């Protein structure tokens, strides 16, 4: 597959080779009208403020691709408020969106919005976060990473770096968030048969300063920690700051692995004070619009389009730095 790059740098998300089997979804089964992407009114509902690199890159990618495809893009931002996202989606429909791309705030709770789209026969592509509703009926398909898989890959990186033994501290994401749940599960499953032992798991709320503060406490109470798994890069970077301040050498005495692929974290790998980062690619624009085009043509759309995420470690961080966001 040819690699598309976006203006926000780095390769766009591409579908992984291995896709989970399952019945595809042709337009004929939905009975939805054919809408040509070019010139169509497309709604994009973003879930959170573009205050973190992931969201910035995600929105940018959708906007860029929309411009490229010549669509009329309507955009809303739910400001982390679930009820607002439902309203947003309804208002997008009301304003004439014929196709929808949604970055769900949460896996659950968007049913009323999907029902409204269904009533207007508007296909919905959800990106980055999978929802619990029915694909093909409630929404068309999900494009995004497999968070459990990301956790597992982080575990593999960790095992590789530590030789499979040592004491790990986990910096959890925000409580109640299903990304946190999945990345924790994947990681714990991944280290289950190794000699790695989880000595602490505390939430850093996906926030750099909280990650730093929690890490500072953990270093004091568990001076023998040899590895840190952070469920996003921000907390990982915070942990690095804390480790350095405590006189440790992150990347050496304490291995740090996290998930995302932000520029700051990848730079730290290149600098030698970070172990590895499992990517979570936010550049969904090209794939999302491509999927909508295929749908219009009448192709079968798979239930899930899991994207292939990259990995950064000391071997490739320097040359792939441009891919980080």
């Amino acid at each position, binding site marked *: 597959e040819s690699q598309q790059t976006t203006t926000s740098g780095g390769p766009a998300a591409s579908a992984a080779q291995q896709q989970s089997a399952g019945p595809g979804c042709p337009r004929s089964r939905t009975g939805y009208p054919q809408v040509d992407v070019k010139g169509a009114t497309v709604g994009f509902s973003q879930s959170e*403020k*573009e*205050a*973190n*690199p992931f969201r*910035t890159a995600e929105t940018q990618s959708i906007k860029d691709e929309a411009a490229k495809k010549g669509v009329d893009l309507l955009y809303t931002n739910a400001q982390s408020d679930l009820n607002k996202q439902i309203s947003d989606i309804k208002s997008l429909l009301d304003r004439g969106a014929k196709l929808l791309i949604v970055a769900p705030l949460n896996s659950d709770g968007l049913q009323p919005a999907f029902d409204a789209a269904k009533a207007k026969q508007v296909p919905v592509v959800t990106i980055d976060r999978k929802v619990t509703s029915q694909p093909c009926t409630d929404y068309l398909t999900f494009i995004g990473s497999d968070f459990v898989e990301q956790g597992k890959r982080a575990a593999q990186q960790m095992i590789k770096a530590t030789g499979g033994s040592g004491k790990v501290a986990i910096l*959890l994401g925000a*409580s109640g968030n299903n990304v946190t749940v999945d990345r924790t599960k994947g990681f714990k499953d991944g280290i289950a048969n190794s000699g790695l032992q989880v*000595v*602490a*798991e*505390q*939430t850093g709320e996906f*926030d*750099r*300063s*909280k990650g*730093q*503060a*929690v890490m*500072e*406490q*953990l*270093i*004091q*109470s*568990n*001076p023998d920690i040899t590895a840190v798994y952070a469920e996003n890069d*921000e907390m990982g*970077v*915070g942990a690095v*700051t804390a480790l350095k*301040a*405590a006189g440790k050498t992150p990347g050496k005495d304490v291995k740090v692995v996290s998930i995302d692929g932000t520029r*700051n974290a990848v730079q730290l790998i290149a600098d030698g004070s970070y172990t590895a980062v499992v990517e979570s690619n936010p550049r969904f624009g090209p794939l999302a619009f491509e999927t909508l085009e295929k749908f219009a043509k009448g192709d079968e759309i798979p239930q899930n389009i899991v994207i292939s995420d990259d990995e950064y470690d000391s071997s490739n961080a320097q040359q792939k730095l441009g891919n980080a966001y």
Partner: protein
Amino acid sequence: MTLTATRTATRTRWLQDNGVYVAVVALVLFNVAFTANFLTVGNFRTQLVQAAPVLIVALGMALVIGTEGVDLSVGAVMALAAAIIPLYLGAGPLVAIMMALTVGLAAGAFNGFLVAKVGIQPIVATLALLVGGRGLALVIADGRLVQLHDPAFLALGTDDVLGIPISVVIAGLLALTVAALTNRTTFGRQLVAVGGNRKAATLAGLPVNRVLIGVYTICGVLAAISGVLATSRLAASDPADMGLLMELSAITAVVVGGTPLTGGKVRVLGTVMGVVLMQLVRATLIKHNLPDSIAQMIQAAIIVAAVYVARERR
């Protein structure tokens, strides 16, 4: 009988005044006994460094609360300060810091103006800045976290003076200043009088508006200082998360420290201890690796217990 009654009364009174100190001592003892590696220099250092920014905000908050007000915008002001830093860091850390403090001063003066001159109730007046301020910070920073590299600026967050972290020294000096301000200056006594009975203070010819604007301005500047220190410690300007929910932490610390929300009284040492107590609680919960759910419930219980002991009897 009367004697025992008086003795009990004296004892409750004492506990009421000193409850927060007792709680801090109790928690320290608990940690010494049950927390691994608690009695180390590094650990105390960590607790102080983490408590410093909260303390600085809480000092300003205590003054505002003394005037029977409250400032919900402190977290947003911290974010504004954080957003300003990278814009001016090119011109040197001193310029950047001065600019950040100026913004805090302006934000505080604006709050004070709304409360004193327009006559809007403090919660609402500062709520507007809480809602809008962080947005403004994000607009200024174009919504981005910016990694900082200026070594002089970062030294603020990492270096020591006489073996004590700079931020802790600054927080300590500010605490002393605020204590002197409240107890030893005209402004401080007027502040407490305004909080105790604003109508009477007005009729007594006190410069009520000036005092109110002054207090909110001080609170704004202190929040900005805290934002600057937290930013340098983080080695990044992060307006999205800087100072999030700081208003609640600061108010909690002030009230737990024995300053009543009804105004007319400011306890500076109590506030310091309130901050230390809440810091120790958080540290204890993390060090014992309690899940978030239990941790939040325990914090709730400790807040209630501390305030229950220090409450004013009818």
